[in-house]
């Protein structure tokens, strides 16, 4: 059984990866940390993502231990600079 999530990339992360969104399928009961490992394991440019990026699951900041479900929207949040 696999879990499909929609990942979003903004600002510097989007520029780094050259994409603003990516669908990712993960095996088992994956956490945010598993998703990050999956992406970073893809080599350049994904390996330039931080090991522990700020992440929001369904538009709320999440810990790296948070479990993911199919259909989740997982956004990688670079350091913010509003105001």
């Amino acid at each position: 059984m696999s879990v499909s999530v929609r990942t979003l990339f903004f600002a510097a992360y989007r520029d780094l990866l050259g994409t603003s969104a990516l669908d990712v399928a993960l095996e088992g009961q994956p956490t945010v940390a598993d998703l990050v490992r999956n992406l970073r394991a893809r080599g350049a440019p994904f390996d330039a993502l931080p090991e522990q990026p700020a992440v929001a699951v369904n538009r709320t900041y999440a810990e790296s231990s948070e479990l993911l479900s199919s259909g989740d929207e997982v956004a990688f949040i670079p350091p913010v600079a509003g105001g």
Partner: protein
Amino acid sequence: MIHASVQTSPIVPETVLAQVGSDQDGAVLLFLGMVRNHADGRAVRGMYYDAYEAMAVPVLREIATEASARLGSDRVAVAHRTGDLAIGDISVAIAVSSPHRAEAYEASRYVIEEIKKRLPVWKREHYVDGEEAWVEGTVPPGGGAPPHRASPEAKTDIAAAARGGTP
């Protein structure tokens, strides 16, 4: 009533100001964040604001609601702009009103400080010399370290770094 918006259209201070105020209130405070013509000693000609809008709107409303609790009034209005801004354009407007001034100053300051800590918004500075870079931001709560940086003061521009561009 609490107002929170993320908008591509220009912010009109009078509109945000008109969203607060009550016969009970003795103090009104309006903060405007503007695009300025310099940053870290470098001449700036404009700024591009990017946002995760589907998340930024509820986070902004959450910040305004927290400020309202400190204020002891529901008169809080905040608007954040996105897109291309010129020097002097308003990037953020925060209006609060309350019976007494101490709470108004505290709540207004709370909103802008929390925006800078956790609103999913990013800005890219366009310099007069033609270069541009994402402004070094703040790691939001629960977030890890930002990606590859030369120094804590350096601009985050991993795209330029990847291209072998100017640091």
